[in-house]
């Protein structure tokens, strides 16, 4: 398999990372001062990597399209971050976190990477607390935990419903300390337009200053891509408006293989679409499933009455409600993994039980939790026989303390009070498990080009468990990359500064300029959004929560046609030499139009159902995903060969030495 050497160290699972750290090459502190590293993206993975690398002594340049590193979309993560601390004494351990993650990913992740992730998870919490991240605490002053989907322990640390924000501000603060020391130069409002290779190694990038429109050259001894996921290929997703695949896709075109593009997480609890004007979707944290019960009416006529506005959900009796997750999955109930919960919601809505005017929504109900917490609070407060109204009020206070910001957000968007009437939710695109293929050292198939966080593919298999994205981003940035990149850079201590005045930089810059010119000179019939929305519809309808061979083939053809139309007819007003948000969007959508096709091709090739990838042809009689370990226990890594249809598949066989492959069951 040659090129797909995952470089997993030998030895027992628990010793691999320690042994690897002990044997890889190091760069001495004096030499680090002569080595430059570019980090693209400043979310949890990029921000933490940049801070740590600068702290070690390397010269770091960071790039982000936002006006400040602190605005990267990691900031929107709500629910929490996992760590195998076992503070609750409920039987947690590194092995259990590892096992849950591999199982949750439907046995399509690499064992060694996942174990390392579990192993460093505890350190992340120590680190963040030392940095002043205000995690939620109990009255005794110790850290609090909550539960997330797909696991049977409480290992999720959180800061209200703003955990991502607090962790990112921690990483950003660590960056600021290095910026203040002059070890990080931050290029904000800059977009990476392409990767520059010299002698086969990643040696720099071409970036566009989004304010002046200037095209710039930046060189380095290594390039780290921490640019997040590609969920916006669906147009509507919970990603930020600017989230894009450009950096990863440009690297792919330069030789980095793209792994498992079809593994997408459709998150079960998002606010439903309200109309055609919709520009993005808003997540309601999975943590809500700790206390919220999901249901639809049992009878079709009740569902219809609710849709018509003739019946209110609170009027429906307990026995007329179908708590379908509790019914189908008694062991995990409302806390089944995300892919399972999403498909179950779609199944009920497709069968006609949806509860909003579009028929695409289910209820997430807090009434039972409010009463439960209210009774407990009343007892603690010394009220022995509190009346039901007092209990409700006390219960609402508890819920507000836990999820207040989420409830407020819901109320602002939907204009309904979720303390009084159940929330309406529906699945939406949230996270992409696929990404650039990386080896154990997080290096892509381009030497010197690394990928961290959501931008790589390595840890979540075919489905990511809740509260694991933050864990992976920070693990990669704080604790993995700083070691592994040193091993690579140890060869570069005599290289000296990489010149940007070379034929390689000339050539890539020329291509970047030509691409911008081509975009600006198209015919001008339709806006960029017109194409993005069309692409999104194809993706959602044919590559979404359930897929089949016929529709995937149609998607491939339709995306290819749409791409040709885009390049001939897109309309971009204004000029390229200055701020031009339409031009920014156009470059991103152009890459989505290529990635989308590869996505569909990958889904078509994978003739099995696993995790977030559900092929209608491969399911059990009761509608659960049917995996095919004999033929598909591999990572699909696609090599760029021009058009997406010509991409060549390389397989990395997944070896399970420590976990027995089983049919995933949450019943």
């Amino acid at each position, binding site marked *: 398999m040659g090129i797909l050497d995952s470089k997993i160290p030998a030895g027992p699972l628990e010793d691999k990372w320690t042994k690897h750290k002990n044997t890889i090459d190091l760069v001495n502190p004096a030499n680090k001062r002569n080595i430059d590293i570019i980090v693209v993206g400043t979310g949890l993975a990029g921000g933490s990597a940049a801070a740590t690398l600068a702290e070690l002594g390397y010269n770091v340049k960071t790039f982000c399209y936002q006006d400040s590193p602190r605005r990267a979309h990691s900031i929107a993560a709500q629910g929490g971050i996992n760590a195998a601390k076992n503070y609750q004494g409920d039987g947690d351990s590194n092995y259990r976190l590892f096992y849950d993650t591999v199982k949750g990913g439907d046995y399509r992740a690499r064992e060694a990477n996942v174990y390392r992730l579990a192993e460093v998870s505890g350190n992340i919490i120590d680190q*963040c607390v030392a940095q*002043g991240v205000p995690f939620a605490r109990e009255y005794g002053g110790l850290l609090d935990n909550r539960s997330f989907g797909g696991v049977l322990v409480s290992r999720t640390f959180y800061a209200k419903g703003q955990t991502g924000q607090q962790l990112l501000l921690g990483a950003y603060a660590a960056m600021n300390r290095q910026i203040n020391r002059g070890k990080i130069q931050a290029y904000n409002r800059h977009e990476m337009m392409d990767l520059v290779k010299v002698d086969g190694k990643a040696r720099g990038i071409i970036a566009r200053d989004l304010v002046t429109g200037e095209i710039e050259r930046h060189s380095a001894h290594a390039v780290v891509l921490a640019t997040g996921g590609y969920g916006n290929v669906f147009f509507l997703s919970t990603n930020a408006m600017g989230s894009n695949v450009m950096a990863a896709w440009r690297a792919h075109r330069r030789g980095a293989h793209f792994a498992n593009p079809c593994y997408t997480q459709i998150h079960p609890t998002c606010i439903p679409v309200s109309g055609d004007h919709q520009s993005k979707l808003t997540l309601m944290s999975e943590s809500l499933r700790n206390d919220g019960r999901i249901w639809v009416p049992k009878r079709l006529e009740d569902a219809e009455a609710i849709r018509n506005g003739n019946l209110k959900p609170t009027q429906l009796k307990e026995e007329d409600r179908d708590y379908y997750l509790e019914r189908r999955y008694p062991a995990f109930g409302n806390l089944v993994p995300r892919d399972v919960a999403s498909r179950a919601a779609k199944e009920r809505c497709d069968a006609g039980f949806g509860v909003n005017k579009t028929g695409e929504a289910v209820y997430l109900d807090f009434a039972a939790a409010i009463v439960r917490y209210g009774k407990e609070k009343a007892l603690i407060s010394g009220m022995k026989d509190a009346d039901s109204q007092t209990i409700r009020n006390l219960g609402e206070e508890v819920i507000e303390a836990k999820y207040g910001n989420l409830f407020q957000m819901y109320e602002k968007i939907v204009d309904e009070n979720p303390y009084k009437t159940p929330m309406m939710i529906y699945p939406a695109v949230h996270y992409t498990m696929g990404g650039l293929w990386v080896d154990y050292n997080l290096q892509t198939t381009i030497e010197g080009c690394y990928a961290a966080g959501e931008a790589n593919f390595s840890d979540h298999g075919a489905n990511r468990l809740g509260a694991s994205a933050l864990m992976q981003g920070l693990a990669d940035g704080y604790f993995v990359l700083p070691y592994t990149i040193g091993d690579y850079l140890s060869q570069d201590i005599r290289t000296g500064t990489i010149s940007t005045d070379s034929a390689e930089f000339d050539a890539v810059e020329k291509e970047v300029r030509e691409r911008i010119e081509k975009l600006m000179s198209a015919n001008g019939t339709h806006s960029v959004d017109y194409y993005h929305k069309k692409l999104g519809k194809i993706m959602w309808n044919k590559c979404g929560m359930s897929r089949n061979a016929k529709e995937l083939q149609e998607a491939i053809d339709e995306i290819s046609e749409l791409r040709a139309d885009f390049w001939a007819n897109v309309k971009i007003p204004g000029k390229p030499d200055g701020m031009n948000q339409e031009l920014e969007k156009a470059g991103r959508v152009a890459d989505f139009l290529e990635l989308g096709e590869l996505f569909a091709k990958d889904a078509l090739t994978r003739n099995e159902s696993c995790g977030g990838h559900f092929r209608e042809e491969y399911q059990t009689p009761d509608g659960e995903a049917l995996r095919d370990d004999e033929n598909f226990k591999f990572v699909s890594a696609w090599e760029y060969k021009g058009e997406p249809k010509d991409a060549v598949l390389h397989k990395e066989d997944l070896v399970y030495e420590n976990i027995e492959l089983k049919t995933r069951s949450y019943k």
Partner: protein
Amino acid sequence: MKLNLKIWRQKDAKSKGQMVDYPIKGVEGDMSFLEMLDVLNEELINKGEEPVEFDHDCREGICGTCSLQINGEPHGPDRLVTTCQLHMRKFKDGDTIVIEPFRASAFPVIKDLIVDRSAFDRIQQAGGYISVNTSGNTVDANAIPIDKHAADEAMDAATCIGCGACVAACKNASAMLFTSAKVSQFALLPQGQVEAVDRVQNMVRQMDLEGFGNCTNTGACEVECPKGISLENIARMNREYLSASLKG
């Protein structure tokens, strides 16, 4: 509904700007304010005109990228929301809506409604951190119990999204609410004590260097803050600053 928008247009930092009228129809109550601007921009692009540029990203009220002075108020008439979470149901058919960039000399206009808020980054670079290495070789997270009330208060201060509404709301364009929220988060936690003296002095010095105005306790910042950051933070920062000055 039909609306009459009056929007600030400015080609770049050097050009002079002006208000331009844009009538718009077909606006629905369920649209967010920014989705309403998307509709306007789609119309402008189809007519061959340049769209109105504005800052936005997460569109769920947490990244702090969106701004806009709407009818004279940062983030518009609703309370405790950012512009991206403001919905058109707060307006009536026939309304005139004046849309301007955040105004402050420390926030120069880049284009149309987009301003440069990098001054906030520089204030934080001056000391908004705890100088601890990211090696992971720290004490166990539960080794330092922290009083729940202090932790919760630190969290309340830390929810600041750095949008700049406090500056835009203030007649003096003061950045005291922002800076004090950052100082408070660390002042309330034991981890922040070691560097407390230098932190508050350095951050306040940078705030002054950036050209933000003084605080005259009018409280407009607290009213307009989309995250409800409390004025108490300013009082806390003043105490911290005074005690730092005494310690030298």
